[in-house]
């Protein structure tokens, strides 16, 4: 009985409050819900099929209306009703949606005294943000998962007080909330097809530095945006609205970079960076969009631990480098006469470089702590006795930044000849960079191709053929030296023409390889890679074929000219039982970073006959 009564009271109270709200709510202009700013704040996008809008937010807590996900209009009305409710405090709509509140009040000329929102106010003043910096973690090709790069926002406190510090600044990231135990494969699958919730989170910058700079060896580029204080405040207010709300994470488009663009769009209405996104948002591309929108005020480079240690070792005189290697490996004592004979300044540099190298090896190569920790301690004790605090050799800032490298979409037109038959070839590549593209702004020896299609029109019979489809192709040639011994490796899959002795058939393939690479000069390296190829097709005699092989070659890369030449040998051992030996020479002449002229020649011995292919043409980068 008492229960029914209470429900009755509640119903009356609800009815009253609704009546009150309706009485006082000003009417909304008819098309305000289609205002670009409102669509941005609600993360609304036109539906792919049919009319209307759909919000990318996948969280009921982000909406005030039950139809909010699909109706910007209902959500706008609900927002207006809610912000006009009397009262304040953490649960009030004005405190939950401060950016919407401010925008709507401005649009409707409503009074705008700040409500008291203890949690939000506390959060906002704690972040103490004057500037916003977009941070880009460069790709590091020896780790395939870093290939797209990565971005996050840093919230910079005022810098002129001496009481703040950028390492302590906070950062905003949008991240897939993957379970720890998920395998890389599952992660990739769910990342592509959906299934991971994406969460916006805040972490101190030094944690990001530790993760990206120190553990993953990725250089960081810091692009300080020219947002004004008011725009910065809006960005924070909107971050508060989406913080802890779920937006499903998609690896290619609705990824880390995408959600940050949405935040910048909200901060500066009319920027519309999201309009640039088509099928994918590669973080390095998103940096270009931000740059092209004129949002960047200042750029700072923070080299990774790996880049820094390589540079401090290179800066040592050759004989000191030998001592460093010997000390790091325990062949020379830290307080040996050999070391103590050096001048203070030279000793300081030597100890610094050796320490950084020992730390790097411990992280990257898992040097045992029993060796590395006592050695690290001795190095620092010896170093602390030296007063020399002269300039530490600073890593030079690359003259061409990652975002200034060639654009990643490539179109090529060429002509050539295969065993006497002339053809015209058109190639489209969605992303990203190959060994012969203009190297500026990319890692030397690194290649990542993604979605490439080569189509040929053979002139003698006017036949159009798909020559090759590359799904993914990664190559990483990392030179080895006295200090570093990385493995060079490659992996790729797709479909390509293969010779069955009588004709060339299109077959799916999978290939991989591992080996080493050695510097021959600053821009040239020689490599030796053991390879494996698998082709599967019913036109092959046993349905598939497998070939172990080798690839020996030389690669030269500079800003004007890149060349690759070598020999490949494969022994097909399942179906054809034939050797396939190939000599290849190819070169690209770079015209700025917009175009390259390319030429390629191969001579092949397969099925006991020789065949030559050549082609030449133009690459254009968009």
């Amino acid at each position: 009985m008492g229960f029914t009564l209470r429900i009755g009271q509640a119903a009356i109270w609800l009815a009253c409050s609704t009546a009150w709200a309706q009485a006082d709510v000003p009417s909304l202009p008819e098309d305000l819900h289609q205002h670009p700013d409102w669509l941005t704040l609600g993360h609304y996008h036109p539906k792919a099929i049919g009319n209307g809008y759909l919000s990318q937010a996948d969280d009921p807590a982000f909406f005030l209306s039950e139809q909010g996900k699909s109706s910007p209009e209902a959500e706008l009305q609900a927002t207006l009703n809610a912000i006009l409710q009397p009262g304040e405090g953490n649960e009030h709509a004005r405190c939950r949606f401060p950016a919407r509140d401010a925008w709507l009040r401005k649009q409707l000329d409503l009074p705008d005294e700040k409500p008291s929102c203890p949690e939000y106010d506390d959060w906002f003043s704690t972040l103490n943000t004057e500037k916003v910096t977009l941070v880009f973690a460069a790709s590091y090709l020896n780790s395939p998962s870093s290939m797209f790069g990565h971005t996050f926002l840093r919230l910079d406190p005022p810098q002129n007080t001496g009481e703040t510090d950028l390492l302590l600044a906070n950062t905003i990231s949008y991240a897939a909330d993957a379970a720890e135990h998920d395998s890389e494969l599952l992660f990739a699958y769910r990342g592509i097809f959906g299934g991971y919730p994406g969460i916006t989170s805040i972490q101190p910058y030094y944690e990001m530095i530790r993760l990206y700079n120190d553990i993953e060896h990725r250089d960081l580029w810091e692009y300080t945006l020219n947002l004004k204080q008011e725009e910065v405040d809006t960005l924070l207010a909107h971050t508060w609205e989406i913080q802890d709300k779920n937006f499903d994470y998609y690896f290619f488009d609705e990824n880390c970079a995408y959600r940050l663009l949405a935040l910048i769009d909200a901060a500066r209405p009319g920027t519309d960076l999201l309009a640039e996104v088509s099928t994918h948002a590669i973080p390095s591309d998103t940096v270009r969009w931000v740059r092209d929108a004129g949002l960047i005020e200042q750029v700072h480079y923070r080299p990774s631990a790996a880049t820094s240690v390589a540079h401090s070792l290179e800066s040592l005189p050759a004989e000191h480098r030998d001592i460093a290697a010997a000390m790091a490996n325990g062949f020379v004592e830290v307080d040996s006469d050999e070391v103590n004979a050096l001048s203070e300044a030279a000793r300081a540099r030597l100890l610094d470089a050796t320490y950084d190298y020992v730390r790097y090896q411990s992280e990257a190569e898992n040097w045992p702590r029993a060796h590395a920790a006592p050695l690290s301690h001795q190095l620092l004790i010896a170093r602390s006795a030296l007063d020399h605090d002269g300039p530490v050799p600073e890593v030079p800032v690359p003259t061409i930044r990652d975002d200034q490298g060639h654009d990643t979409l490539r179109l090529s037109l060429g002509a050539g000849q295969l065993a006497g038959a002339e053809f015209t070839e058109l190639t489209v590549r969605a992303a990203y960079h190959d060994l012969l593209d203009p190297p500026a702004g990319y890692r030397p020896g690194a290649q990542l191709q993604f979605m490439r299609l080569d189509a040929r029109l053979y002139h003698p019979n006017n036949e159009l053929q798909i020559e090759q489809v590359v799904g993914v192709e990664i190559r990483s040639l990392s030179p080895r030296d006295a200090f570093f011994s990385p493995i060079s490796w490659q992996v790729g899959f797709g479909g390509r023409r293969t010779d069955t002795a009588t004709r060339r058939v299109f077959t799916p393939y999978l290939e991989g390889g591992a080996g080493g690479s050695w510097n021959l000069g600053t821009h040239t390296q020689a490599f030796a890679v053991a390879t494996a190829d698998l082709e599967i097709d019913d036109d092959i005699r046993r349905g598939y074929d497998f070939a172990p092989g080798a690839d020996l070659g030389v690669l030269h890369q500079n800003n004007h000219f890149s060349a690759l030449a070598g020999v490949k040998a494969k022994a097909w051992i399942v179906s054809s039982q034939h050797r396939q030996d190939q000599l290849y020479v190819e070169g690209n002449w770079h015209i700025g970073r917009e175009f390259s002229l390319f030429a390629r020649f191969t001579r092949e011995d397969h099925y006991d006959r020789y065949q030559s292919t050549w082609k030449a043409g133009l690459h254009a980068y968009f």
Partner: protein
Amino acid sequence: MKKLIAGAVLLGASTMAFAQPGCGVGSMIWKGQSGVAPHVLAATTNGTLGNQTFGMTTGTLGCQTNQAVQSMAMYMDSNIDKVARDMSRGTGENLDTLAVLLGINEADRDEFRATLQDNFAAIFPNSETTSGEAVDAIVALLEQNESLSKYVAA
């Protein structure tokens, strides 16, 4: 200053239950990163980290009540390798960060850097030193210093 300290460390740790900082053993120096990157792909492509950032172990060392010292303890717990490196050199951004966390005025910073460098062996007596022990040693050193003692007063 208090605002800064909170901003520096508490936001990142807001969901983590940690023991009173400056009251624990902290992490051992040069312990390596094993366990930090078990899921490299997720981390790389922005997986949220199952964050052990401030996993300070409680211990029996003297508790610090000074909030600035607590902040320094938390920072050292996460960054002890780099703090030790900068300290041995008497320069570096991690040393600057410690100075900011302790609220040391510009005028006293040279003295601060020099004190830590000169006493490196006392702060890190061996390769098993933990961040908690290093914090206690730093506090003891600063307390004895005429111009720096005011920054670590309880």
